[in-house]
């Protein structure tokens, strides 16, 4: 065998609340959190996974399909994926998917990938910033019965039905070679994701799910009717396909809350314990006095 043919990739992405930028206005006085104050963003490491897939396509040819499971508004990150270069995007949305833990999520993703059918590589971000579990990638790989390569920082080679990749670990790196198909989880240091292209953005500004047509019509009243807009979107192949649980053949008992073995016993809002807090003014004298105090208390020095 020689060099590989084209590589077909499926990228698993997630829309997440921007938990990294919890500002004080997102926190209420009693220490609870106002979730609505957080914008929904493209999970950062999923962008690295998409970029890796796009680079593989540039080198080897093939296709990049992006899949997300989420509420209807998760279509936003699929549009973003198209503008960054994805060939095809799919939204998994269904009330029955709601409340899924990582195991139930991996079953829905497995079914969706199996419906897509042919693939050489599955890529996903190492973890999502709303849960930080890093579980869905390995669980999806297990469900699909394919090997996983986690913490991938770079792909060195794809040849002879195998991929050679560098894994970034806490205390070093590992170069591994794995048979295709396999699932990669990608770390943030892997690459710098390309921005959405202006050209693609122009060409695909009307990419939308059918559920979005009413709001699209409000933005583009010149279409006159929703039917006319729908016809225009379909003609240009801009409709974002939406798959339900039935569409992917996922049994209700295996997905969403019903399919989740973990349950929340309780949730505590974080109420911070009050400490004896001394306010120190940000002036050289006050800082010097504080330093001196720390030294005298043998806390430093």
């Amino acid at each position, binding site marked *: 065998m020689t060099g590989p043919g084209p590589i077909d990739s499926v990228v698993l992405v997630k829309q997440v609340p921007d938990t*990294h930028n919890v500002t004080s206005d997102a926190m209420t006085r009693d220490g609870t959190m106002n979730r609505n104050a957080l914008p929904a963003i493209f999970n950062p490491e999923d962008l690295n996974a998409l970029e890796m897939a796009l680079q593989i396509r540039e080198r080897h040819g093939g296709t990049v399909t992006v899949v997300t499971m989420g509420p209807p508004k998760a279509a936003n990150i699929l549009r973003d994926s198209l503008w960054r270069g994805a060939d095809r995007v799919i939204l998994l949305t269904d009330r029955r998917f709601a409340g899924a833990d990582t195991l139930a999520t991996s079953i829905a993703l497995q079914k969706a990938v199996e419906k897509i059918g042919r693939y050489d590589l599955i890529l996903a971000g190492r973890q999502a910033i709303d849960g*930080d579990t890093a579980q869905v990638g*390995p669980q999806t790989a297990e469900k699909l019965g394919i090997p996983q390569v986690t913490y991938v920082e770079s792909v060195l080679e794809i040849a002879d039905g195998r991929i050679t990749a560098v894994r970034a*670990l806490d205390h*070093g790196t590992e*170069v591994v070679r794995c048979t295709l198909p396999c699932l990669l989880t990608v770390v943030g240091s892997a690459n710098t994701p390309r921005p959405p292209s202006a050209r693609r953005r122009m060409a695909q500004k009307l990419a939308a799910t059918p559920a979005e047509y009413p709001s699209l019509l409000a933005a583009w009243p010149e279409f006159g009717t929703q039917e006319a807009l729908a016809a225009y979107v379909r003609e240009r192949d801009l409709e974002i396909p939406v798959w339900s649980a039935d569409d992917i053949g996922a049994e209700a008992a295996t997905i969403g809350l019903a399919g989740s073995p973990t349950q929340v016993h309780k949730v505590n809002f974080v109420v911070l314990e009050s400490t004896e807090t001394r306010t120190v003014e940000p002036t050289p004298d006050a800082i010097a006095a504080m330093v001196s105090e*720390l030294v005298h208390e043998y*806390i430093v020095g």
Partner: protein
Amino acid sequence: MSEQTVNHATSTGGPVPDAATAGGPKAIWVFIEQVDGAIADVSMELVGRARELADPLGYAVVGILLGHEVNGLAPDVIARGADRVLVADHPELAHYRTLPYARVLIDEARRGRPEILLVGATPNGRDLAPRVASALRCGLTADCTDLQIGDHHIRRDDRTVKNLLFQIRPAFGGNLIATIVNPDTRPQMATVREGVMRMPDADPTRAGEIERLEPAFQPGDFALEVLDRRRRESTVRLKDAAVVVAGGAGIKDQAAFDALRELANLLGGEVGASRAAVDAGLIERDHQVGQTGTTVRPRLYIAAGISGAVQHRAGMAESSKIIAINTDPNAPMFQIAHYRIVGDAAKVVPMMIKALRERSAEDAPVWAAEDEEEGAADGAGGAATGASEGAAR
């Protein structure tokens, strides 16, 4: 125990029935991770915690140790609190690889039916645990910061399941603390960060059994080969540092971060960071403090421009003294801080450096001596060189 109500309609796997229906003794299993023949601290910390959880329930504590030429490690697992150690010693297990390791754990968990299976939340542990949990169709909670035993009432079915593992972790970007349970699937699986549980003392007089396992690999288990392994000895000694100077989103550029390094050097400490600073590329990931980084308990923690999400605080809240510097007067970090400085860290940190420089001209020798003592007294961790080393960086 409760009845199994989980419907596993899809093809492979299936939940593991609990030990009561199997007639065997109930047990808490701990995956004993070893790298190059040394057991990871977190594995022993988990053996210690498992012992504490098991005793009131009358459960056994079982370590499961995989590797090659690792039989000699088993007695130490017993000394730390295990009743039994299952050892899979095989050349294919010499270095961690997902599929061969998962094969052994999945097969043994199906056979031994543990109530609970704990795994350290190391990179390998976080790679292995979800693969195993997926095959066993059981619940898994990542990165727990506490484990307890308690009862859980399921309102929907109006039934109470007794003696469940409470898997406690920060959630939603660390703004909530969630207690997760797996009422109906076994084992109850959780990964736990290094350093959040106490390292148990070794008791060499403890008795226990060592049992050899015969792995039954399948050809597909060797889909991945490791071509090269580069171990980079981290020069970061956060875990045992006496002083940590950490920067976050409020540190905007490299120059401001360099000032933190200088302050850390002056104090004989280490530089830490919140994830925001790591993600911004200001510092390497092995400096990260928090739930997904290192847990630290220094004498002094300086949080410069770190707002203080629970995830970060989970890794540093037990510091003896905390100085918080932030421009936002409502930053959550101020609520656990002993010294509250509302201001720009880029200005305040140089003031601290200046104040220390002026002092150190007076009593530098005393400092060095103090640091030596601290390093020697704190020999429990792997990085015994501790505090004094940081000053040399």
